[in-house]
């Protein structure tokens, strides 16, 4: 269920790495927990954030949640479709519901992220 080639954070973001760039979104588990997503607030291309810093917010009907940067990096692009179709995060969290594309600043931080198997187990533990 979680793409095998993606990396994951314990805040339920995924990162699809291609060289020194990565595409980031939230996982199916996170989207399901949040419920119907109605608003996503994203940064501007060019903004830079450190790992763990809030790069945006996501709102379901009931709640507001922060979005956390998976690794240090600069925003290269954002998913403009989410402005008018935030529900893409629910319907396609791992693909069409992507949020930001980043330039990865420190490749060594990737080693701190979980692979899909580890993340799957992490989610199972959270459901307990």
């Amino acid at each position, binding site marked *: 269920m979680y793409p095998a080639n993606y990396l994951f954070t314990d805040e339920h973001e995924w990162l699809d790495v291609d060289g020194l760039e990565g595409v980031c979104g939230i996982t199916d588990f996170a989207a399901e927990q949040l419920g119907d997503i109605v608003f996503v607030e994203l940064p501007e291309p060019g903004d830079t954030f450190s790992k763990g810093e809030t790069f945006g917010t996501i709102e379901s009907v009931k709640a*507001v949640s922060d979005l956390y940067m998976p690794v240090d990096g600069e925003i290269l692009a954002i998913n403009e479709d989410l402005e008018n179709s935030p529900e893409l995060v629910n319907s396609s969290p791992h693909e069409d519901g992507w949020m930001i594309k980043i330039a990865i600043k420190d490749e060594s931080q990737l080693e701190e992220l979980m692979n899909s198997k580890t993340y799957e187990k992490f989610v199972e533990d959270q459901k307990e």
Partner: protein
Amino acid sequence: MTENIKKTPLNSEHRKHGGRLVPFAGFEMPVQYAGVIEEHMAVRTAAGIFDVSHMGEIEVKGPDALPYLQKISSNNVAKLADGQIHYTALTYTNGTFVDDMLIYKYDENHYLLVVNASNTDKDFAWCQKNTDGFDVKVTNLSDKYAQIAIQGPKAQAILTPLTDVDLDAIKYYWFTEGKVEGAECIVSRTGYTGEDGFEVYCKPEDAVKIWQAMMKEGEKYGLQPAGLGARDTLRLEAKMALYGNDIDDTTTVLEADLGWICKLKKGDFNGRDVLLKQKEEGLKRMLVGFEMVDKGIARHGYPVVDNGKEIGYISSGSFAPYLKRNIGLAYLPIELTEIGTEFKVGIRGKELKAKVVETPFYKREK
């Protein structure tokens, strides 16, 4: 945290239908099943069924029931006919809310108050405290009643084959007693969604069979179980106040724009002096409906700001699933309450534009 959390008789039904259960007002209640938006739309276009067994019921009986209720409630209870219901405020002597509630009139000596779950104990204590000089008996019957709300344009069609009550004969905000699925119930044409519909009060042990019968009968009409999430967005579109958000012990009945339940000419009641003075001198602030102009959702507790200064607050705010706009209710300085007036909401460090709009946001076609 989880000790002493109460379960309604329908707890197992919620689990069966995939309800996500959360603690609410001392009860374990479903916040959603299929999803807030889907449930919300089901209520607007077909029907939804809600477990509202957590609501409190307080019985008032005795020869002084009417004068007693006239003292503790802001609406004019003398106007109620037998079998009629009205919305009112249980007021403190400073004109603010102990709670908001419905009063059901059986007859001059017998009424039922339906109050918010989170306030039941407080309300009951307040009711008891106010009985001095009145020949009344006030009883907390909350554990004796389960309550199921069925709401939406198909509600009557679903309920009709399950009851011996002539539903056509129940007008809006009236009730009767009769059988639903063979069990003795109170059936009222009331609700908290802005749709037509009914609230059915039954014995706790009858709740499951009534719920199951409604679910079965409702299947062909698109009936869906709906949780607290949809209940909140539905009531907000209909601009029905939520205690703890839009009204509480810091807001008066008039500030809450509920002048229509504040009958200052009916005689004395708790808080009347303060409310009368407020009316004569003019309000300094009032609750209004608004719509976001800028992108963003203003939520409960966010400040209304003017050049960095807090001048009011958002009492409720959400994406409105049926209207597909970001709406809410806010306490604003009176000079900003005209329809069309723009103001700013502080949202995570930004000041985003909103404007005052007509309410209710949503009104069903009759």
